């Protein structure tokens, strides 16, 4: 064999040694997803076997040589009902099971660490809360739920990590989220799976899952000096946002302290929770997102700030406590998982400022 075709031989050896039917299960959701997957494979195999066996058996038993005269049968309501109801039942089980997983994957837990990801032709840019920027790679710790807030700067992209069994499209003009909890340190593939133009197949990267200790080391070694919120603060100042958004009694805009997670009432009477998506929209399309009691005087920043800039601003506003000076001193380690949450206001916390809910 080896003499006949070394290439083929190499191939076979390679195949036998690397053969896998599914990628590693490196996140908490992966085994759950795989359970459903294997259930489906099993059902499919059984179904397929039944069909093949029946076709084969009938072909042998009722071939013309053995069975020269066909017996005309109209049908059988009972049989037909059987193969309507059983598949329907199985499909409905798959539907419910699938929907449960779907909701799990797209509903991040409250204690998740948030990382922003910007997709653009043809690279992924990840922004850690501590100000670490990465391109086409993502370093994350195990044992910690991680939420990705995705946005695209141009066309549709899709952030896919097969080893985690999660995938979410980064769409232009809107945040989408996905979360996962890595369980196994290692390096995994990151793909862009939504066709996005010429170098679509180059828009790949590595997901590096580290143990919490290694992750801390990595954070320390790759910090750019400023946290994301600090970047945001600079931007906040340079865009003169403080001219209106301040705590003075005659302020033209609402104070933004503790605004994140608060329930706001807009001029249209609509009640809305100030989340990432709201903050982004309020910066880019302010007139639709004016809090009740304020005049629609805020200019739009569409086209003036990049998506990264918006992310920095959102991150800054998120961490604005009543006195934003406190935030200025926040250093990278404060934003580590665990300590971070104490700084950010909890979801259900009522707004501290009276003006917000007038």
């Amino acid at each position: 064999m080896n003499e006949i075709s070394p290439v083929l031989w190499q191939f076979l050896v390679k195949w036998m040694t690397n053969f896998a039917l599914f990628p590693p299960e490196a996140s908490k959701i992966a085994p759950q997803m795989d359970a459903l997957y294997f259930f489906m494979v099993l059902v499919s195999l059984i179904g397929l076997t039944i069909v093949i066996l029946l076709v084969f058996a009938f072909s042998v038993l009722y071939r013309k040589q053995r069975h020269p005269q066909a017996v005309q049968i109209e049908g059988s309501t009972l049989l037909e009902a059987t193969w309507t109801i059983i598949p329907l039942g199985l499909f409905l089980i798959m539907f419910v099971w699938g929907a449960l997983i779907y909701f799990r994957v797209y509903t991040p837990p409250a204690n998740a660490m948030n990382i922003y990801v910007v997709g653009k032709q043809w690279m992924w840019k990840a922004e850690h809360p501590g100000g670490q920027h990465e391109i086409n790679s993502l370093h994350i710790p195990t044992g910690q739920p991680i939420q990705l807030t995705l946005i695209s700067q141009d066309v549709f992209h899709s952030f896919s990590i097969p080893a985690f069994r999660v995938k979410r499209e980064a769409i232009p003009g809107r945040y989408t989220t996905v979360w996962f909890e890595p369980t196994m340190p290692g390096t995994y593939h990151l793909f862009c799976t939504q066709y996005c133009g010429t170098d679509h197949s180059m828009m790949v990267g590595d997901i590096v899952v580290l143990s919490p200790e290694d992750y801390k080391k990595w954070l320390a070694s790759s910090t750019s000096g400023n946290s994301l919120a600090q970047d945001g603060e600079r931007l906040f100042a340079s865009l003169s946002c403080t001219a209106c958004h301040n705590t003075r009694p005659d302020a033209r805009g609402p104070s933004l302290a503790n605004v994140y997670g608060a329930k706001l009432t807009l001029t249209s009477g609509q009640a809305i929770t100030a989340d990432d998506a709201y903050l982004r929209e309020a910066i880019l399309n302010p007139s639709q997102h004016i809090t009740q009691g304020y005049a629609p005087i805020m200019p739009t920043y569409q086209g003036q700030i990049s998506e990264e800039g918006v992310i920095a601003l959102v991150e800054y506003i998120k961490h604005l406590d009543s006195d934003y000076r406190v935030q200025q001193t926040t250093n990278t380690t404060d934003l580590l998982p665990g300590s971070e949450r104490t700084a950010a206001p909890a979801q259900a916390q009522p707004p501290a400022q009276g003006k917000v809910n007038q």
Partner: protein
Amino acid sequence: MSATTLVTLPDQATARIPKMNFITKENGLLSWLLTGDHKRIATLYLISITFFFFIGGALAGLIRLELLTPQSDLMASDTYNKVFTMHGIVMIFLFLVPSVPATLGNFFIPMMIGAKDLALPKINLLSWYLYVVGGILVLYTMISGGVDTGWTFTTPLSTHYVNTNVMSTGLAIFIAGFSSIFTGLNFIVTIHKMRCPGMTWFRLPLFVWANYAASILMVLGTPVLAIAIVLVALERTIGIGVFDPTRGGDPLLFQHLFWFYSHPAVYIMILPGMGVISETISTFSRKRVFGYTAVAFSSVAIAVFGFFVWAHHMFIMGISNYSALVFSLLTMLVAVPSAIKIFNWTFTLYKGSITFETPMLYSFGFMGLFTIGGLTGVFLGASGTDIHLTETYFIVAHFHFVMVGGMLMAFLAGVHFWWPKMTGRMYPEKISQLAALITFIGFNFTFFPQFILGTLGMPRRYAAYPPEFQILNVFSTAGATILGVGYLLPVLYLVWSLKYGEIAGDNPWQATGLEWQTQSPPLTENFTTTPVMDHEAYDYEWLESQQAKEVASVG
């Protein structure tokens, strides 16, 4: 009549092709190009879609060759993108959508219901011309540099980020879309209004039911694609857009409109194929289709439910989770009629008298591959697993199992089945059985590894991929070469048989459809007198008594 075949051919020494038939009626190119005869238009369609099938096939070959190695070495990635885009556009809009309806349906629906022609012959011819114009525009696109948006034209990629021939492709699809609308419209009218005396709805062959269901989808779905394409074109030209997020539009709206057509479109593609299978399974097992009504209504059910599932293409694209829930549930419901069909066909074999001519082999191939294709569709319809499997090679494998393993197998089954009727001559049996086998093996070799690739996470539309996926890709490419042989063979021997095939006679398969009760090739008017349907569909006892009567009267 031998024990292993049901083919009954007339005595070859004395048999002649009837002098008067639709082919010999008139001569000259113009008599074809200006014809109103549905059989001639079907022939024109058959030739043109075969042409485009091989163009699409050649592009598929290039894709597989490129994927032989992990690097993008045979082609640069933008060339690769153009190649797979053109492969998709040619195969979907110029082959799969018109394949069975416009050729076999066009030819046989009027004959099956005992009519002289489709209700609107001029519209029928017009729809062929629209198809040709669409095809020429696609060829023009290809020659003048191609287009690299993918066949899905995802906005804002197609509107603002590519500089290739989106406009001419869009126009091509717009025009080809109207071709398909007119075909569908013609079928619906014909089936409603042109049935011969006695041909009630429940005496219609299931092929007619299936095409009827597909036609509903064509008529109601295609215009939405047309308007979506118009909006894309307007956005590219005057640059204001409902699909452009930077101007306040929503790119997901394009997805909604696009998939409102393009999901039903997969049923447009598969339903007529299912109709073919109903005919062949019944004929070669000498039995009425098991549960005729269930099979008929399952076609209609697929057509109706098919309209309400489109957003399952958008589960991970940021539609609301609640509507994902609804669309996922409806997707599960639409899978059921297909399961019913598969089991009904299987039980048609029960207590039959089965022979294994080529159309039957293709039909068996269809049943196996379509079962896999359909069941893997459920993987993608369940919203949870869809997250992992969508946009990977799993989905590529899934729709190729349905479209190529299902539809193309059915198309070949149908072409072989009706070849003697269309041309008056038999195709060579042994080599065609071999071709069916080669196709089946080649197909599985090509597309089965892609399921594993997809599960492993290999994204679709990648010119270059991580090296660990290479082995399976090599298998896939190797299979594709086998598949290529499987598709070339029929062209060769079918053309050969036009001159050298055995003379088939009126009804070589002893089939019951009205189309078999007239001469082959048929007269321009199809029947000498308007037939009267006085029996149920697939009534083999009626056929036998009919033949007994003939023998008696001749004797």
